């Protein structure tokens, strides 16, 4: 019995997004209620899918009941279910923040675009077809273009044009890679690819290597891996706060796709690619982490600091992914969950601060902001999480990554620990300018600001997620290790597609 629930995370936001545009375009209150209800529904579905994925190793939904590899399939396994759940959790926090801070009222169609964005993200995580992955990438990108320039303004539009241009080039590269792969193997179904790549004739291998590297390049653009990270700081720093927080899961799509393709189609045992992918990814990931850490230390604004922290977290995640062992992948997944929640919380705090200050430059101290004690506390907790200090989950995540890469300890441990030190210094510098020096400079009279209860609830919610992730790290890791083992083994994933014999 095929479970129709697998497609629900795509259908629900798609239908709700359309309804929001068609029926509720003039009424913000209705939009808020229905959009939040749909996101809560998505969370419920995601929890059910995670439960389902825990019971069966892999389940396939054949769209239109066309058999694979001819039709498009959606595949539910632990890895995809986990990413959908992470998206839903983040979406609720971001949506509450957008409502609480009134960001959704600063332009039109925030909620509709938000739902379309969720549709694209969930679809990209669930699909088992490489060309369908491209289509869902485009769905989530086109929604993200709208969200990125939400609220308008000169800088935002300009950064938006750069962002769109960069991603259009990425999409074109994706198409070149897919067409080459199709030309060589005659299939775009991921499970079918995994089977066919193993029996590739010698003469096709060189061309396939080119296609594989192009594919990984596209995912590296999405995952902001050096040297393809240039779009990220400008985009994230200029995007509205809640949108930047939602984008925290977008970089993870690149990481997810590298795990999926790297573990299933291009594992190091593949004759055609060998260790090529890992050899390219590892140095790039190390440089990414360092660039992110130096960026945090030298950031000129709070928004850019959060953006470079996101780059650094992708560096750490990719270091673990590039090892391509189940243990390292499990550590990477744990770190991805942590860094999504922590990174999003940091963007929300940056927005809380920016909306209370005259500007968000870190070069000069301004008088204390409204609610400075509470926001400073939030900043402190999130800084601890992002930098990877105990007691929060960032520490456990980095520990797991270092443990998984014990055999390359000399290089990788020193890079991770050195980068952590730089990030701590960067956060200390930003915190002292924003919160401490503020008391020494200027007026004593308390600043006032519109109360934003819901916005604080959302930010605290993300931090609560980090605490839960820390407290239950044991059971979570047991679950993730099984997820990583299944992703690397791949037998269940391929078997679930029910491919015809010798096609």
């Amino acid at each position, binding site marked *: 019995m095929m479970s129709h629930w697998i497609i629900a995370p795509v259908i629900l936001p798609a239908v709700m997004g359309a309804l929001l545009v068609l029926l509720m375009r003039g009424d913000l209150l209705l939009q808020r209620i229905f959009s939040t209800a749909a996101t809560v529904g998505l969370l419920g579905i995601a929890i059910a899918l995670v439960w389902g994925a825990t019971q069966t190793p892999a389940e396939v939904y054949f769209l239109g009941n066309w058999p694979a590899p001819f039709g498009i399939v959606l595949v539910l396994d632990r890895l995809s279910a986990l990413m959908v759940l992470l998206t839903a959790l983040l979406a609720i926090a971001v949506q509450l923040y957008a409502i609480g801070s009134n960001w959704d009222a600063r332009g039109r169609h925030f909620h509709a675009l938000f739902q379309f964005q969720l549709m694209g993200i969930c679809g990209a995580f669930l699909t088992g077809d490489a060309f369908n992955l491209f289509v869902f990438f485009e769905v989530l990108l086109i929604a993200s273009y709208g969200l990125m*320039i939400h609220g308008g303004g000169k800088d935002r539009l300009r950064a938006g044009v750069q962002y769109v241009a960069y991603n*259009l080039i990425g999409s074109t590269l994706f198409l070149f890679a897919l067409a080459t792969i*199709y030309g060589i193997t005659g299939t775009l179904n991921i499970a079918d690819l995994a089977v066919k790549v193993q029996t590739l004739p010698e003469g096709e291998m060189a061309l396939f290597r080119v296609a594989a590297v192009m594919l990984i390049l596209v995912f590296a653009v999405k995952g902001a891996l050096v040297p393809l990270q240039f779009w990220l700081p400008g985009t994230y720093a200029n995007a509205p706060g809640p949108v930047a927080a939602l984008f925290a899961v977008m970089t993870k799509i690149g990481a997810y796709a590298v795990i999926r393709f790297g573990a299933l189609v291009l594992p190091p045992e593949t004759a055609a690619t060998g260790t090529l992918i890992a050899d390219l990814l590892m140095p790039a990931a190390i440089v990414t982490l360092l660039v992110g850490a130096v960026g945090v230390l030298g950031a000129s604004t709070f928004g850019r600091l959060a953006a470079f922290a996101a780059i650094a977290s992708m560096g750490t995640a990719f270091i673990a992914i590039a090892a391509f062992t189940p243990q390292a992948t499990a550590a990477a997944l744990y770190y991805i969950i942590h860094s999504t929640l922590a990174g999003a919380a940091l963007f929300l705090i940056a927005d809380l601060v920016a909306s209370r200050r005259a500007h968000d430059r870190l070069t000069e101290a301004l008088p204390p902001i409204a609610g400075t004690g509470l926001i400073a506390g939030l900043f402190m907790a999130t800084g601890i999480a992002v930098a990877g200090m105990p007691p929060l989950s960032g520490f456990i995540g980095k520990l797991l990554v270092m443990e998984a890469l014990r055999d390359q300890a000399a290089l990788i441990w020193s890079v991770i620990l050195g980068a952590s030190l730089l990030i701590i210094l960067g956060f200390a510098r930003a915190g002292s300018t924003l919160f401490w020096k503020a008391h020494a400079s200027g007026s004593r009279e308390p600043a006032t600001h519109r109360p934003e209860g819901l916005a604080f609830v959302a930010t605290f919610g993300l931090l609560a997620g980090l605490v839960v992730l820390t407290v239950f790290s044991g059971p979570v890791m047991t679950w993730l290790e099984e997820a990583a083992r299944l992703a690397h083994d791949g037998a269940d994933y391929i078997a679930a597609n029910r491919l015809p014999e010798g096609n």
Partner: protein
Amino acid sequence: MELLLASALGLLTTAGLYLILRKRTFPVIVGLTLISYAVNVFIFISGRLVSGLPPIYNPAAAGYADPLPQALVLTAIVISFGMTAVIVMMALGAFIESGDDKVDMNDKDEAGTTK
């Protein structure tokens, strides 16, 4: 025919890349369009170049042209067309708001006045 298509693809991509590296928005958009034309043709020929064959299997014919790339290229054309429309609108908005159509951010922007 192979030589003709391969050189056309190469030319389109080269011209597109050159234009993408320009400093103003308009040439960049034209460059993106050229590259998306190139990739559309590239997808089309990934099912191999054949002429005079039906796209659906027919026992009477000598073979058949692969129909899947034709479906893929339709999707790719629609998406690249839509994306080009989006970037044109955004570039226009940025031009109207800031008064010039330079692609890069100048120092004043970098200093950060976002709110």
